[in-house]
């Protein structure tokens, strides 16, 4: 019997914030059989999207979807301090449902950006951020600075699609017409493919950005050219400042090496002010190298609906925002949470052990397409159709451009959005909301 072959073009890979939208996927009899153009991570994500799916379980025992949803509602409506957490690898449609559930429950809601690029969001609230789209970078940038990030291992096709070798309107020669600088604490594949690698000592991002502000503005710095800042001579930093002032269109891509090292949010604050001041001389922007596929969408949705991008508490009936206090890691480390609804993230793998361990002691409802460390101990496990493979919806790229991800295969399971809608409806009914 002939097998049915479907070829899907322009499929979006949902792994990282690049959201590469040129992937070709072959599907034979509803099974993904071949993936073209994706990086190794994206290829593995798509090729393994339909395997290793968990069962619907309560306390490890198989059950029906209806029973699992009832148990989830029972847990959440009886909790005194529930947490709604995740959002980063699902659609904005599902994220919207999560915010509404959090509000109905008077819960706390947070997403993984609170321990990744959250400090950058806090900085933006203080000083703003001059930013752009990846399309602008591709077409215009003649100076690209990678600061505290290593996209050749984390955002593999970023360099070829957007930032380095991509051929753009004003850069038809691609790589030849761009200068690439990397600032990092160690050699990486990205630093090795750059024109200039500035190897710095760890934890000095704030000092570097402060010095560059002074040098770009031609202000006196009270130090000689031989003095070291972050282990690098001032003369070298002066060279970088001149390169920045001399470019036509520059962009800094910053990673967790900026947001997670000493200083955290004030590092990004200083970097954002630097970028703003560079615009007194030339066009210059900065962009966060967002990790999970739709973590930027999580921030967007939370901001539309609560006014804040992360770490929001509804216990008083209105949204309160306080990173540190309402950040997922702090809440769990202090053992304040007594139940959790977790969607599209894997706290068993991603969180510090002492933090994740608290989740093993409280009832957890977990929506997830695959078996992973969290499915091993979650109280209620509900498998879902994977977004971008078996469910469609909206994802936000790292430059906050929304893209529609496709459904390319059918699944036996509902999407995150559909399961969350059912949970929300039954919570609403149970609470007579």
């Amino acid at each position, binding site marked *: 019997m002939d097998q049915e072959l479907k070829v899907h073009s322009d499929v979006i890979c949902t792994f990282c914030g690049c959201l590469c939208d040129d992937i070709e996927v072959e599907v034979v009899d509803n099974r993904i059989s071949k993936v073209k153009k994706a990086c190794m991570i994206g290829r593995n994500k798509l090729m393994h999207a339909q395997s290793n799916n968990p069962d619907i379980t309560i306390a490890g025992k198989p059950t029906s979807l209806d029973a699992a949803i009832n148990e989830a509602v029972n847990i959440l409506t009886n909790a005194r301090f529930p947490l709604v957490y995740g959002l980063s690898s699902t659609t904005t449609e599902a994220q919207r449902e999560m915010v509404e559930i959090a509000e109905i429950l008077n819960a706390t809601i947070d997403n993984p950006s609170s321990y990744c690029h959250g400090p950058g969001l806090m900085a933006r609230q203080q000083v703003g951020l001059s930013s752009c789209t990846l399309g602008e970078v591709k077409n215009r940038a003649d100076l690209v600075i990678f600061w505290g990030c290593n996209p050749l291992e984390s955002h593999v096709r970023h360099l070829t699609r957007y930032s380095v070798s991509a051929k753009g309107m004003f850069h038809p020669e691609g790589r030849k017409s761009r200068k690439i600088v990397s600032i990092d604490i160690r050699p990486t594949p990205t630093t090795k493919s750059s024109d200039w690698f500035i190897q710095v000592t760890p934890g000095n991002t704030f000092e570097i950005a402060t010095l560059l502000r002074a040098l770009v503005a031609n202000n006196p710095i009270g130090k000689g050219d031989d003095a070291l800042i972050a282990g690098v001579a001032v003369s070298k930093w002066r060279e970088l400042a001149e390169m920045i002032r001399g470019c036509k269109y520059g962009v800094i891509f910053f990673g967790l090496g900026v947001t997670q090292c000493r200083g955290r949010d004030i590092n990004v604050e200083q970097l954002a002010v630097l970028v703003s001041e560079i615009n007194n001389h030339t066009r210059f922007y900065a962009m966060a190298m967002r990790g999970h596929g739709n973590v930027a969408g999580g921030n967007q949705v939370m901001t539309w609906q609560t006014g804040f991008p992360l770490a929001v508490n509804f216990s008083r009936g209105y949204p309160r925002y306080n990173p540190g206090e309402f950040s997922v890691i702090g809440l769990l480390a202090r053992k304040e949470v007594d139940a959790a609804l977790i969607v599209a993230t894997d706290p068993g793998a991603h969180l*510090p052990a002492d933090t994740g361990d608290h989740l093993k002691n409280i009832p957890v409802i977990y929506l997830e397409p695959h078996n992973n460390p969290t499915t091993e101990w979650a109280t209620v496990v509900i498998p879902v159709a994977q977004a971008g493979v078996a469910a469609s919806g909206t994802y936000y790229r790292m430059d906050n451009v929304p893209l529609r991800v496709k459904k390319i295969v059918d699944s036996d399971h509902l999407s995150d959005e559909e399961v969350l809608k059912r949970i929300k409806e039954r919570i609403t009914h149970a609470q007579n909301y």
Partner: protein
Amino acid sequence: MAGISGLLVTVRTGKQGAEMMRGKMNPEYLDEISTLRINPDDMAEAQMLPGQKVKVSSSFGEVTVTCIASDVPRKLFFLPVGPVANRLVSGSDTDGTGVPAWKGEQVTIEPADQVQ
């Protein structure tokens, strides 16, 4: 006893990302997130050999990993992000920001066969 102290920095690696997508229980993923990159001079000072099992300890926990020599700075140790590295950092240590010290946790490393 041989050993060395420095800062643990968690990082992404291409293999960690690719293997994670095949499943977080698969041996290749678990091997990769248990591989510590360390400067060759630090290895010599701590009397460790490439491929040797070493114990990494912080104030919050300890793990046994495999060390390999890499062109990283001295006294900086690099471990891929994941459940192994996460045993060495704490959610109670975020300076009020919600972000643990994934890029600078003080650790001590010693050959695992010396561990009592």
